[in-house]
């Protein structure tokens, strides 16, 4: 709907829209003491002082009668001014925190880029801390986040496409990619998937993640979420697409592979020998965190001859008084451990330490001395716990923690055969997965020699960049 030349008419309609909105301010004044004008803005989203000094003051003190739009614009001292001709556009500008000036007799309004609201300062992301490397993290402001990307990649090839999602929230979303590096079909696919989303509000990137995944039922994440600008930029440089959402510090990266979930930025910041060694340590403990208790249960209930004799005798000794079967014991302890972990995660830091003390005493010392669980079991659970903390990304840690239980059950039912069945089923699923068309297990399956140097080891940087 077009704006009317009649100021009163426009204001009447705007007031109807913003009925019962106490934070929307209608400020009327006269240009040069003559022409009626109205400023509309949301309190708390704008720079009020700048508005006073650079818009209201020059207009009020200047010449009055019949100003043209261009005239008004030139007299204000604001760098970012946009003219808005439609009513919907007006509402959008106000919601985004730009004060709008409607002048009597003009059928267009001016929106001033004087947005400013309270935001968190840039801090180190707690979930992805590093010892060496940049310590800044994304914040809840899309503008700032995009600026952080631009500060790292100063090339004009860094393209930022914006759109809005959410029928109610109208959340601004930005899609960043590096032109010439990212394949155009990928960018097209991301855009088309985003545009297909029907959603009311977007409070976090997770809201859209579930919409645009390839396999919506898989427990494995098919997009990578990060709070680190350096990680986002690294993936941009590799030709991937980054999706940023207003109001959340996490951004999404697509497409990804399974192995990118097991990498940390520090793999690349440390010397490559160290990076490789730590990567392998991580792979090893990843397997432990998935199979640790299952292997123990399988060996203890079905394959006792596999254990070296001395160890076997010691284990037999410690299991002697235990009332539960190994499977039951494993379920009990693993559930307990997960509960403890969840309890600790949600509590304030001060109380969190109390939980860990109680947990260590209850599931550790007391359970053993009461003869409810065996000491080797507690060790296995503890090692598995440590192993699961080694998952560099929370999003890959969760499915592994979950899948541990069915595999444990299989181990208790069928021994190592069951463990193998579970692993085969899991691998079949992983090999079937795709992230935006990219096979999840690549470059291992299908094998791609070029990519292996960043999976089997962290090749030195000069070899890593060579695209041969």
């Amino acid at each position, binding site marked *: 709907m077009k704006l009317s030349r009649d100021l009163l008419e426009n204001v009447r309609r705007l007031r109807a829209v913003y009925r019962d909105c106490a934070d929307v301010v209608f400020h009327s004044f006269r240009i040069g003491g003559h022409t009626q004008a109205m400023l509309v803005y949301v309190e708390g989203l704008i720079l009020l002082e700048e508005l006073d000094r650079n818009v209201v003051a020059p207009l009020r003190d200047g010449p009055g009668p019949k100003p043209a739009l261009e005239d008004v614009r030139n007299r204000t001292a604001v760098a970012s001014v946009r003219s808005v001709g439609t009513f919907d556009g007006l509402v959008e500008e106000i919601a985004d925190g730009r004060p709008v000036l409607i002048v009597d007799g003009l059928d267009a309004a001016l929106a001033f880029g004087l947005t400013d609201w309270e935001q968190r300062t840039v801090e180190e992301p707690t979930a992805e801390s590093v010892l060496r490397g940049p310590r800044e993290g994304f914040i809840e402001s899309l503008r700032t986040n995009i600026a952080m990307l631009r500060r790292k990649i100063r090339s004009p090839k860094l393209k930022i496409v914006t759109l809005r999602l959410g029928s109610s929230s109208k959340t601004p979303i930005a899609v960043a990619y590096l032109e010439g590096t990212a394949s155009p079909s990928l960018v097209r696919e991301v855009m088309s998937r985003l545009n297909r989303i029907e959603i009311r509000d977007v409070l976090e990137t997770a809201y859209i993640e579930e919409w645009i995944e390839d396999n919506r*039922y898989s427990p494995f994440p098919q997009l990578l979420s990060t709070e680190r600008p350096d990680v986002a930029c690294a993936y941009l440089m590799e030709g991937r697409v980054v999706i940023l959402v207003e109001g959340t510090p996490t951004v999404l990266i697509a497409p990804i592979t399974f192995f990118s979930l097991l990498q940390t930025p520090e793999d690349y910041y440390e010397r490559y020998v160290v990076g490789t060694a730590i990567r392998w340590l991580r792979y090893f403990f990843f397997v432990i965190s998935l199979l640790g208790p299952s292997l123990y249960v399988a060996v*203890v*209930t*079905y394959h*006792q*001859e596999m*254990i070296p*004799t*001395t160890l*076997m*005798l*010691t*284990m*037999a*000794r*410690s*299991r*002697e*008084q*235990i009332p539960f*079967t*190994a499977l039951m014991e494993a379920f009990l302890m693993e559930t307990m451990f997960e509960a403890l972990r969840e309890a600790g995660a949600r509590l304030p830091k001060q109380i969190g330490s109390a939980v860990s003390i109680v947990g260590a005493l209850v599931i550790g010392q007391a359970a*053993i*001395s009461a*003869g409810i669980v065996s*000491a080797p079991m507690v060790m296995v659970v503890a090692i598995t716990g440590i192993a699961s903390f080694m998952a560099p990304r929370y999003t890959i840690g969760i499915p592994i923690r979950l899948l541990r239980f069915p595999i444990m*059950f*299989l181990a*208790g*039912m*069928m*021994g190592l055969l*069951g463990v193998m069945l579970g692993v085969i089923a899991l691998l079949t699923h992983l090999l079937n997965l795709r992230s935006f068309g990219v096979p999840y297990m690549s470059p291992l399956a299908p094998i791609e020699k070029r990519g292996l140097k960043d999976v089997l080891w962290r090749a030195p940087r000069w070899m890593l960049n060579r695209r041969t």
Partner: protein
Amino acid sequence: MVRKLALALALAVCLLPAAGCWNAREVNDLAIITEAGIDLTEDGRIELSVKIYLTSPIGDSGSGGQMSNQPNGDKGTSVIRTVTGINMADAASRLQKMVSRRIFWGQTEVFLFGERLARADLEAPMDFLMRHVASRERSHVFICDGTARDVLLLDPPIDRSVADALIAMAERQTGLNITMKELAQMMVGKAKAAVLPIVQINTHKEKQEAYPFIEGLAVIKEGRMIARMNEQATRGVMWLRNEMKQATVTVTPDDSGGFVSLHLMRSHTRLIPSIENGRWIMTVRITGQDDIVENTSNLDLSEPAHLGKVEREMERFVEERVNLALNAAQKEFNADIFGFAEAFWRKYPKQWKANAGRWDEIFPKVEVRLETDLRIARPGLIGKNFFRRQKQR
């Protein structure tokens, strides 16, 4: 799609209890046998003695029924059960009747055969042990001087059990080290002859507890023990079988007025068969390197000439022992316990095939050519024994 998947999953879960669990055995329900002895009774029955590890901490006499995680004094944590039966399987099933828990053979590390049983028949118990799914092919096998039960009853002070002590001794290669698999291979091999170490008991004397040790070997031919060899001949057998890994040899070189002791660092024995004009010849090439550990002779071992002298002496010493073993095996027992048959078969499959039935006739006549080449690698930090020189002044 989702519904179908869920259905399939539910069905699969329902099938699980049907398929699984029946062979689950909790550790608490097992009677873990750590060592087993097999004897033959006077009336020809098989006597099976097993040592069952006691996992229950209550049964621990030392800790007085107190629950404790420390394996405080693992002594007296085993019980011995003895049963007799008409054969191994019969005895084993009778054993199950005597024990409240499920008999578990998977951790049995040592099998002991009584001499009487070994002289009568080893084939029957071996069939049971190799056929049994749970028993370990890597377990060690010994022949006992006397009955196996007597050895089982020992409680050697140093190690946790007789089994541990015997394994440690065998693996140190001071005696023969034969596993179940090797024994089976030898028994069914081309030569149908095998050797097993003999366990003897050093009897209880005053404060000294009785303990087992390995000395000598038993020669097994066609499924039964036919003879014993003494320690010297055993060493010769070990040289020939390339099992000599650790030895200290003391020689007396001519006009040296003392002894030189050498410690074997490494050795290797190669059997090189050849057939020349219908004569079966086996060249045995023994190479090795030694350290000198003691020198009480007047030789200056920093001089190559003197070293050579010791080396010759050493070679003569080894050859002597090897000939002892060869004589006994070829002339006395006619048992090819050195693997000559396999060596010939590998190199001359056709001739072997033609003469396979005649090996017992050929073996005693096989001409053995010894080529020993032992070197002194490290004469030690001092050349002469200079303590001795001081004494002479």
